[in-house]
């Protein structure tokens, strides 16, 4: 803070600037930044629509970002398949990111909000409608029609399951079915019969009760909080989870579902509420059937290998109880292209490669479900040596043959419906609400979630 030397030599013209307080220029600039930066962010978030320009020069180096969820095994397979693509197109490299299912969609939403979504990302039907209806995903219809994206070898229901509001929002990467997994070792040890496909819900619960009594392990995880079990059960009554833009069931249906399982719990066919809760919130590796806390778990059949990895016991899998034609083969996962990507054409080509190239198909195997491309599915089934994968294919083929047509793709708000079902079912499981009260609350919450007032 030294004394300043005489400053009077300054020309009067600049006086205006001088008298302004020292920070004002900066302040003005900060103010400008305050206005400009959000605008810039917004502009970035909008992305540009004229993708494909990068394809003008086919040999120009391109780096595509790709993001998926899964365990390390899937990461290895996916990386190997992508390496194949790079081998054929040396100018294309990948920025690969993957993580566990938990938190995946939070991160994807955050990246998307920042206008920085990956060029290619994995998605499933829980969120496909959310993303498609908000125009995050690129409409692939024109690529499909133009032959750049080949789905001709796909079962029709499978690729159509990626259509939201008339737009092809994602390419199905696997076919998957509901499966009731049981602990074979446990049953054999206690000389108990295995459950069978086609048994009624009442028979199944009686069977589970019997397991609880004899094996001293609860016969089945209580699936009342499990949306897919609820869904199958609804379809067996001629209802559905969604019908057009509304719910496809009534409050009474939910009450009936909760009462069915309250009865099962009262008879000791299922574990206590706290153990059920553990099964409800953990990932696949801690399902009750592998932690030894229940004789059966309600899963997707492609999760079998992951389940096996976590137990020494032998596992078997059958369809859910009741009429099997209410079950359906579901597109287990999709790959979608970000609408704001500036490398759309290449991204679509990569997806096309992963879905249809025989070599890539062999590498990817059944990790995301049975391959969508029927030729590849056949080749993989014939050549596969991995025992888990082999069983998984056999099971899916066997179950799949008995199943009915797919329901419509879940509505926007589906993930909320799922979490509300867990909450309502647990209210009943912990004995805090009657089935009717919980059903009422759940029904109201569902209507809000899907915007059906």
């Amino acid at each position, binding site marked *: 803070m030294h004394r300043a030397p005489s400053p009077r030599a300054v020309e009067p013209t600049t006086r205006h600037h001088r008298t302004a307080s020292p920070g004002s220029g900066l302040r003005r600039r900060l103010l400008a930044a305050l206005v400009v930066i959000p605008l810039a962010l917004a502009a970035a978030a909008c992305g540009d629509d004229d993708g494909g320009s990068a394809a003008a020069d086919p040999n120009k180096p391109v780096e595509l970002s790709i993001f998926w969820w899964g365990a390390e095994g899937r990461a290895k397979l996916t990386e190997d398949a992508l390496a194949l693509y790079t081998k054929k197109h040396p100018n294309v490299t990948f920025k690969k990111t993957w993580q566990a299912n938990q938190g995946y969609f939070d991160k994807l939403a*955050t990246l998307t909000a920042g206008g920085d979504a990956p060029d290619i990302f994995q998605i499933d039907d829980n969120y496909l409608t959310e993303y498609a209806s908000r125009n995050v995903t690129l409409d692939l219809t024109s690529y499909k029609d133009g032959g750049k994206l080949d789905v001709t070898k796909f079962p029709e229901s499978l690729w159509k399951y990626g259509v939201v509001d008339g737009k092809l929002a994602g390419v199905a990467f696997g076919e998957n079915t509901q499966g009731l997994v049981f602990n074979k070792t446990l049953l054999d040890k206690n000389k108990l019969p295995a459950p069978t496909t086609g048994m009624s819900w009442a028979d199944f619960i009686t069977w589970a009760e019997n397991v609880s009594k004899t094996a001293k392990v609860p016969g089945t995880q209580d699936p009342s909080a499990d949306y897919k079990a609820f869904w199958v059960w609804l379809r067996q009554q001629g209802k559905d989870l969604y019908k057009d833009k509304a719910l496809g069931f009534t409050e009474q249906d939910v009450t009936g579902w909760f009462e069915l399982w309250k009865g099962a719990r009262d008879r000791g066919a299922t574990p206590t509420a706290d153990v059920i809760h553990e099964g409800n919130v953990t990932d696949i590796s801690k399902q009750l059937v592998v932690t030894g806390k229940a004789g059966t778990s309600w899963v997707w059949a492609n999760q079998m290998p992951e389940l096996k990895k976590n137990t020494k016991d032998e596992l078997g899998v059958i369809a859910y109880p009741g009429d099997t034609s209410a079950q359906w083969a579901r597109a287990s996962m999709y790959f979608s292209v970000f609408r704001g990507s500036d490398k759309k054409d290449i991204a679509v080509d990569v997806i096309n490669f992963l879905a249809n190239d025989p070599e890539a198909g062999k590498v990817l195997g059944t990790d995301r479900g049975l391959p969508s491309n029927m030729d590849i599915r056949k080749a993989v089934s014939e050549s596969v040596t991995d025992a888990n994968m082999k069983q998984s294919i056999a099971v899916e083929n066997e179950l799949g043959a008995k199943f009915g047509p797919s329901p419509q793709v879940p509505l926007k708000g589906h993930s909320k419906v799922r979490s509300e079902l867990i909450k309502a079912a647990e209210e009943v499981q912990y004995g805090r609400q009657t089935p009717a009260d919980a059903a009422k609350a759940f029904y109201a919450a569902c209507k809000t979630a899907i915007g059906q007032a």
Partner: protein
Amino acid sequence: MAVSIAPPAEVPAAPGPASRRGRGGPRRRENIAGYVFLSPWLLGLLGITAIPMLLSLYLSFTNYDALTDFSAVEWVGFDNYRKMFTADPSYWHAVRVTVEFALIAVPLKLATALGVALLLNKAFKGVGLFRGLFYLPSLLGGSVALAIVWVNMFNREGAFNSLLSVFGIHGKPWVNDPDWALETLMVLAIWQFGAPMVIFLAGLKQIPVELYEAASVDGANAWRQFRAVTLPMLSPVIFFNLVLETINGFQGFTSAFVLSNGTGGPVDSTLMYSLNLYIKGFTELQMGYASAMAWVFLVAIALITVVLFSTGRFWVHYADGEER
């Protein structure tokens, strides 16, 4: 902060526009240097605090859902705020859970911290080691690892129940029981009393020994000394810790998130305000609504702090006896 660098030199000079203009050049240069040195902090403040905050204030009046383009955002006025207070039962549930958590965990944590600080204020062999050990849980802070350990300690087969079974007590599935899950989180919060404890210790060291000597000459026993000397002398530190820990308590997130796998369960028993906010914003993609919740939260915490400060007048004593 930047402003305080410049002015002092001015004082002796005659006031008036001429002299102000006179010091303009170098002063300006000094200011520029100041801003240059400050710029990393300023950029951080703007980029990751101020602008996002202003944006979120704006977004709280919109239906922004994180995925839609900014340009398509619709202004909905006070709808988000109205919905929060009148049409969202989960909101009030989360408020109740959070208030319950803060009301119970914060006083207990402070009491534990003070108690242990009093013990560790005594001179005995190895006191340094004990101070370190007691501070350790605090260092682990809001870590995810710690919350996972907690889950495994307090489930049905956990270490805690094994311990109870030694005494023939059948434990509960604490973390999986909606009646106990929140209490388990409280215990976790209380256990991390290290930070306020260290501050209490520092405060205790500041109390002049003469006061205790005088008190004991007057025949005051230990309890009386605590009431008449320690507490009043320590009250500014208690106040400081109370404010800090209250804010902390209301912001509880990590442990609840990990324990419930991000759901707030079992049956919403651990649905803390911040967790609810996170779920609304990131899982249900209602960013506008979540922003509104965040602003109400900010105002609520500010109000609570103001209330604490206003009560401070009645019980916080500063050594110099001045009113604050």
